[in-house]
């Protein structure tokens, strides 16, 4: 089937839209979908994420991986790759290799630095603060600001004791 928009490329995605109250199905190629924003309706990354999963090196050992299953929600590795979504918080541990690989490609990072929830956030906050202080300590030593360094070292020690 040819793409409804450019009428040249083969259509690869089906798009449902509501036009004047009526549901209309459209078939688009990847390029037209991207250009019209169709492939990006809820999450512009979803398709990209799925295609990256296919590239993931881990998948070359997919015979073994196919058996992997999350015990909390019964999500299988096969399902995860197919829909590009996980079934529960625990899946992040079960499929961590793949998720980690793909997130690095997409976000350029795999470490959260944003908001921390109040509940259960204490340890995380402390760890983050320790990391921040260690960075500062490194800088202080580099710039030979030894008085600051001593103070920073003491702060780190105090925080580490609380753990």
């Amino acid at each position: 089937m040819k793409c409804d928009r450019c009428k040249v490329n083969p259509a690869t995605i089906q798009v449902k839209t509501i036009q004047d109250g009526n549901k209309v199905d459209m078939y688009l190629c990847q390029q037209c979908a991207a250009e019209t924003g169709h492939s990006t309706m809820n999450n512009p990354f979803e398709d990209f994420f799925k295609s990256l999963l296919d590239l993931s090196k881990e998948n070359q050992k997919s015979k073994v991986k196919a058996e992997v299953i999350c015990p909390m929600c019964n999500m299988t590795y096969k399902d995860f790759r197919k829909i590009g979504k996980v079934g529960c918080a625990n899946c992040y541990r079960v499929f961590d290799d793949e998720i980690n690989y793909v997130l690095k490609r997409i976000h350029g990072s795999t470490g959260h630095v944003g908001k921390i929830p109040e509940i259960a956030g204490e340890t995380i906050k402390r760890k983050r603060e320790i990391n921040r202080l260690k960075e500062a300590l490194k800088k202080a030593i580099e710039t030979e600001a030894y008085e600051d360094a001593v103070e920073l070292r003491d702060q780190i020690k105090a925080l580490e004791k609380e753990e």
Partner: protein
Amino acid sequence: MSNINKNDDVIITTRIRLARNIQKYPFPNRMSDISAEQMMDEIKEVIMGASSPISEHFEFYNLRELTMNEKLALLEERLISPELLKKQIPCGVILYRDLGLSVMINEEDHVRIQCITDGMNMPGAYELANRIDDLIEEKINYAYNEKYGYLTACPTNVGTGLRASYMLHVPALEAYGQLSIILQAIGKFGITVRGMYGEGTEAYGSIFQISNQITLGETEMNIIHNLNNITSQIIEQERRVRQKLIKEDQLEFEDKIFRSYGVLSHARKITAKEAMSLLSDVKVGLELGVLKMDKSGLDIYNLMTRIQPANLQKLAGRELNSNERDIKRAILIREKLPLLTNG
């Protein structure tokens, strides 16, 4: 002056969305109906039962108890997403309409907190959404881990779970064919573009939505800051081209704007698509002072929402076929469009 501060000659609305999940339940794509009901009750209780003074303003809607038209009307107001409409499991939405606040329950994630405000007001929108987030967080354990932050059904939303967007009205850039160049360029900065309702609405009154793509490895403030930078550049470009349009083709430009006003103020039948495009002309005509009217009397974005099919039917209190809708739409626009003071 306040108009310029809000940049609302170009920015129609600001939107914030926070995606959150509850630790003890599987995500909506793996959830039983019983858990879904139970979770909905918990969220309802936390938000609506809180002692916070804002709690009494919330209304809850169980999607199963709404008619299709009521649901579509919420969709047209962007208070719910297309995804929520398709859900098979129990799902719902908590609204505080006056603040543009909505909390979708059991969409792709358990909780999606959304805030839409007029003009360019990211701090205001974020502050409100964040307040609801804090309210929930006080009582409920979110799915969260140190490495990935807030855990979401689609790993591409993890981290902050934040999507910040602006709805832009850029008729001049579109008319000059510069839009596609800009849109291509901003992809490099981790910004993405969609139509007004998320889908292929390219011809819908030159209105586009731009949002952040990156959710992990940046703080909420950085994400917003980055989006603001790009947006400010687009605003500047749009203004420049508008000035150019009015200088170089003044008569053509004014003719087009007055004709658009003429059709809107006299048509007896009009499709949504045509109306959106003409309203877009009128809006830019007002911004540039070509049309003069009591501007406080015209809220373009609100009118654009009211003339959508489901909202028209809601107003009429019954189903309308497309011909009847075109007639009602024309009547509504004639009612709402203020008279020109320089006609």
